[in-house]
């Protein structure tokens, strides 16, 4: 796997643009997943993950071949996602009340799909609920939790991606876990 990736990167560095599409194919799902989990929005996730690949292509000369490519790529993607979150206008949350209404939250504006069997609805609601909970975490805990539990990365890799000491990553994961647990108990 790593040898294959290295070979492709060497091709790209030599100026073979088409070889880059193989890299995109290999990593697109992972990068998209991180972006989506960070931003909670399909369009923004697509924007950010595409931008991440573009930046990777443009800056491929600065990539150190001795390090893991996925770490470098995730770093670009998480930085872009965090930038995007910072620049975002004051966000609204799904459970906020819609202005001028009583008892009506943004949740109730989701189109409900009657045709789905019950367990699928439950599954879908569960998925939405997870994403919703993730989005409620402050971005710095969010990135650590996503990389740890959704990408299954080691603490060392996460510390490389976020450019933080391992101890700080641990603390963020602990706090993120704690915050999620609290709401899970409350709900």
């Amino acid at each position: 796997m790593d040898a294959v990736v290295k070979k492709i990167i060497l091709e790209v560095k030599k100026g073979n643009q088409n070889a880059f599409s193989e890299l995109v194919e290999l990593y697109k799902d992972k990068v998209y997943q991180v972006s989506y989990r960070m931003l909670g929005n399909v369009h923004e996730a697509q924007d950010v993950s595409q931008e991440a690949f573009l930046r990777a292509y443009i800056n491929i000369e600065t990539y150190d071949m001795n390090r893991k490519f996925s770490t470098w790529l995730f770093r670009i993607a998480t930085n872009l996602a965090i930038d995007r979150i910072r620049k975002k206008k004051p966000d609204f949350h799904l459970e906020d009340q819609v202005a001028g209404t009583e008892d009506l939250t943004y949740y109730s504006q989701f189109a409900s799909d009657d045709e789905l069997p019950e367990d699928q609805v439950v599954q879908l609601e569960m998925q939405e609920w997870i994403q919703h909970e993730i989005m409620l975490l402050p971005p710095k805990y969010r990135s650590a939790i996503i990389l740890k539990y959704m990408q299954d990365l080691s603490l060392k890799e996460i510390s490389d991606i976020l450019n933080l000491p391992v101890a700080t990553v641990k603390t963020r994961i602990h706090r993120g876990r704690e915050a999620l647990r609290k709401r899970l108990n409350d709900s």
Partner: protein
Amino acid sequence: MACNKEFAEKVHKYLDEDVTLLEKKQLESHIIKCEKCEKQLRDLKKTIAIIQSASHMEAPNNFTANVMSQLPKQSYKNKWKTWMRRHPFVLTAAVFFLMFVISVHSVWTEGNKEIIVKGDGHFIVDEQRRVVVIPEGQTISGDLVVKNGNVEVNGEVLGNITVIKGEQYLASAGHVAGEIQEINQVLEWLWFQTKSFFSDVISFIDSNDDKSIND
């Protein structure tokens, strides 16, 4: 929540698989007695399991194509360079072919003026008429090669005659034992060169063999 700060910390370290064997034993025995800490650990494990159950996501269908279409356009020069790097033999072959054509051309055109004769025996070179004459009664023992001139055979040639950029006239009295060949075009000449090179090689090998037999 855990019963105290120390155990709260330990529970997290436990989940990170970051505890020593002793700490692990301590926590495990503590949990049996302490309901709070047991619940804390159970809840956190449940939280992790839920987060991990989040389905894996796939990038949209046209993702790769979109990315590729947004990459900065490669210049024509760059594309050409890439193509060359991927097909080094084409470049090598092209260079060799060019060298070959140049050298053949220079050999073919150079010394157009001078009449060159190769052969064993007596002959007369007539510079004014640009003719090599084999006089009557004379014999050329081997092959005769004449370049940049005509040949007039009045005597006898035991081998082949090759005329490069010229013509041969065989007088009625003359006699040629081998073949007569006129070469007036580059390709013909090339073919002749290649053939004679290989026949030289073969005769060289043959003579070596003869020698080794004699030894």
